[in-house]
């Protein structure tokens, strides 16, 4: 089996490497990918059309808005899938009593506790900055949401899962994840209600104190906030389900 795998891998690699000489050189500005007028358009016209300096965020949240919306749904579905695979009733766990009586209350370690107490608010503040400033500097909803989720994971690691569950209990996780998608699709439906296409933010200047071009920028911030909600909730949900083996009692 192993030798068969090695042969298959080497044949695949040889086929791919034999095509390498046809690829454009590293850093070639004339390569088809870089010279194509779509990417040129994204670079030169993003700011005039959307007033957002960060092209990646603009392409992600505006030009490819459908893609990102269903991306958020992918995360949501993954979180629900993990929950439905792993989550089990506490009753199921009561059978092995010996394990159950071992109430897992960690002794608070002074250094870890103090460090995390200082770190977690700063991490959360930084996450909010990454979300809110995501269309002017590197950042966006996915990145900020993951950082915010990481702060809760740090809380769960430094204390125990119950401490983090006080802030994001399972019910709130599901609510937050759903609210994120609702915010995103709400922007899309608001555009439709005002008589434009789904996720065509320009029309939203009618209900925003902004010019049509600025409305695109503000709506991008709005949908990024929705993405961040879902990302935060699902990241913490994935961690808490995987680390506690589905019973939400004790962590690693």
């Amino acid at each position, binding site marked *: 089996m192993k030798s068969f*795998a*090695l042969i298959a891998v080497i044949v695949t690699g040889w086929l791919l490497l034999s095509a390498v000489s046809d*690829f454009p050189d*590293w850093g070639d500005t004339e390569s088809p990918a*870089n010279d194509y007028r779509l990417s040129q358009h994204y670079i030169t016209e993003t700011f005039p059309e959307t007033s957002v300096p960060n092209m990646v965020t603009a392409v992600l949240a505006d030009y490819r808005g459908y893609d990102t919306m269903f991306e958020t749904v*992918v995360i949501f579905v993954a979180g629900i899938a993990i929950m439905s*695979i792993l989550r089990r009733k506490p009753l199921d766990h009561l059978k092995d009593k010996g394990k159950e009586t071992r109430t897992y209350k960690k002794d608070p370690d002074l250094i870890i506790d103090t460090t995390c107490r200082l770190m977690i608010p700063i991490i959360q503040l930084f996450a909010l900055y990454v979300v809110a400033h995501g269309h002017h500097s590197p950042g966006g909803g996915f990145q900020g949401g993951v950082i915010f989720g990481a702060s809760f994971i740090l809380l769960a690691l430094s204390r125990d899962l119950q401490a983090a569950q006080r802030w994001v209990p399972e019910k709130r996780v599901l609510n937050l994840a759903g609210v994120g998608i609702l915010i995103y699709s709400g922007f899309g439906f608001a555009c439709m209600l005002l008589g434009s296409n789904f996720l065509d933010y320009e029309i939203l200047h009618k209900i925003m104190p902004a*010019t049509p071009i600025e409305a695109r920028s503000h709506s991008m911030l709005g949908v990024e906030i929705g993405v961040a909600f879902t990302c935060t909730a699902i990241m913490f949900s994935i961690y808490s389900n995987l680390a506690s083996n589905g019973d939400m009692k004790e962590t690693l």
Partner: protein
Amino acid sequence: MELLEALSAKFNYWIYVIIMMIGLYAMISKNNLVKKLIGMSIFQTAIILFYVSIGVKEGDTIPILYHDQVHPSHGDSHHGADTGHGEDHHPSHEEIVANLHIEPDDFANPLPHVLMLTAIVVGVATLGVGLALTQKIYRDFGSIEENEILESIKSAK
């Protein structure tokens, strides 16, 4: 020497193929399900490297406009036209765009970056679901070694 030049001009493709082979080999040949998932992650990393390296241009920077380009308030021409507001005057979007000059070759191609941001998210989702399935399998069979799982399925029949 020619070979070395041919290698260095396209080293990103060589490295992506090698990383991809490592991931593929781990996915096919390893018995342990967690090691298979690690192989899948390595495979995804190779694809991300491939796409991002396609978007690189010689001497470029990240695809975000410079602060000076979009906030030209420190420029020379605008201060003369102020009507007593001084530094509070911000040029309108149309004024900025009229003075804006962007050279496409100065910025990396943003499209591969966006696609790979999407791919990373999908990667996290698949890895999470894969780990959850592995944990469930361990709960039911008491093992994450593929051959042991197959044996216990056979003996159950």
